[in-house]
């Protein structure tokens, strides 16, 4: 047999559930819609961003009605280069991922960083670049960009 054409058919995998984002993640996402970033203070006194519903050490419910606004600018605590962007990622060209500790927060927020590879350093100051339209979704943050 010389014809090696393989039969194929589309197979789309999905789990079409509707989920509530809950009091904490919902408040965080609503904050993004308003171009504000919210965190919560955990049992160790750290301001955690994004805010979790439960304390990582004690499992106590954290106060969704007592969220703390942090800055939209901060510092890179770690970063990596993504040479092979994949479907759904923030950029279609090679780009950096960064963990960014926003001023006022004690933890890192993961997102893309739009800056030339050779300019990126741990410790560099970056700020949020907002999406043109914010809807209450993590992609309301388009990416981070150098702060100066």
């Amino acid at each position, binding site marked *: 047999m010389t014809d090696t054409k393989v039969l194929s058919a589309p197979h789309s995998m999905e789990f079409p559930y509707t989920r509530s984002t809950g009091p904490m993640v919902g408040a965080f996402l609503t904050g993004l819609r308003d171009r504000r970033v919210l965190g919560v203070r955990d049992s160790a006194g750290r301001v955690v961003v994004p805010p979790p519903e439960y304390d990582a050490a004690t499992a106590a419910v954290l106060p969704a009605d007592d969220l703390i606004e942090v800055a939209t600018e901060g510092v890179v605590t770690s970063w990596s280069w993504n040479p092979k962007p994949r479907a759904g990622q923030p950029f279609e060209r090679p780009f950096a991922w960064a963990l960014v500790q926003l001023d006022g927060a004690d933890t890192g927020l993961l997102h893309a960083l739009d800056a030339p590879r050779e300019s990126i350093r*741990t410790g560099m100051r970056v700020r949020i670049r907002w999406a043109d339209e914010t809807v209450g979704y993590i992609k309301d943050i388009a990416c981070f960009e150098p702060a100066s």
Partner: protein
Amino acid sequence: MRDVAVVSFAQSATRRDQTRNEVEILMPVLREAMAPTGLTTHDMGFTCSGSSDYLAGQAFAFVSALDAVGPWPPIQESHVEMDGAWALYEAWVRLQHGDIDTALVYAFGKSSPGDVGRVLALQLDPYVVGPLWPDAVSIAALQARAFLEAGHDEKDLARVVARSRRNAAGNPHAQLSGEVDEATLLDEPLYADPLRMHDCPPISDGAAVVVLAAGDRARELCERPAWIRGIDHRIDVQALGSRDLATSASTKLAGQKAGVGRVDLAEIHAPFSHQELIVAEALGLNESTTSINPSGGALASNPVMVAGLVRIGEAARRLSAGEGERAVAHATSGPALQQNLVCVLEAS
């Protein structure tokens, strides 16, 4: 606690297997693991498997793998959507009940048909991380930088890779092996900066099978059983930015609970080179007295959902063969070493 031992272990060769499906990969491995025990899968008191439906791209894909076991007439069976090491943990717990004496544990995974780096993004927080689709290599590279900038050198990563390839030369199941010079490795370009391509695992398909037995039954089935002296698993906080990526608190705690102590050999499930160093440090291992990853580890072959169980099987097999008296095996799950299992084994 009831004494439970690994009495048999088998694994497939790992490679990109384009001709066989999961059941076809698993069946000969099952047969090979059962053979020395003289038992059949139907003699097993309990059967537990580890795999991921996301790799197969089909809900309840693990059910079809039961065709390899032959679940009729009905058997007592369970499954974890985790590496097979956690299936072994469930089987160990099940054996503690005391009403059965044997258990079959298996794991299988085909990473090659899809984009495993992207599939693994589905295990991330679905609200604030998942929508960005950060792939497994990018996340590992974030961890590698945190590790390097905490006072480690990229030469340490090259040393891990060179040792893995060298050790894997004696492992017929490994995918990547051979003599490589550390300086040559460091001359290679950065891929996912700060990682080079060789700091990342190969794409592997494979399966592994472990037979467990309790007490006297273990001594009947195996000349030198590898007894499980301690087993524990712990998890770190989900958010990548909320923990110290340069260390592994969950591995350290699991190691303390399992009672690692002095070991002749260690099999560490570290798909990325820096992760082996993080785990070794958390377990308090010293390479001058402990042989680390004599099989080559997950850098030499990394069948996802299988590679952790292989670490336990490799450690047990080596103890049963007289290569040592006490070993530790480690398995990991989740992004950047989020969840870790530690199993201490002894044979004499």
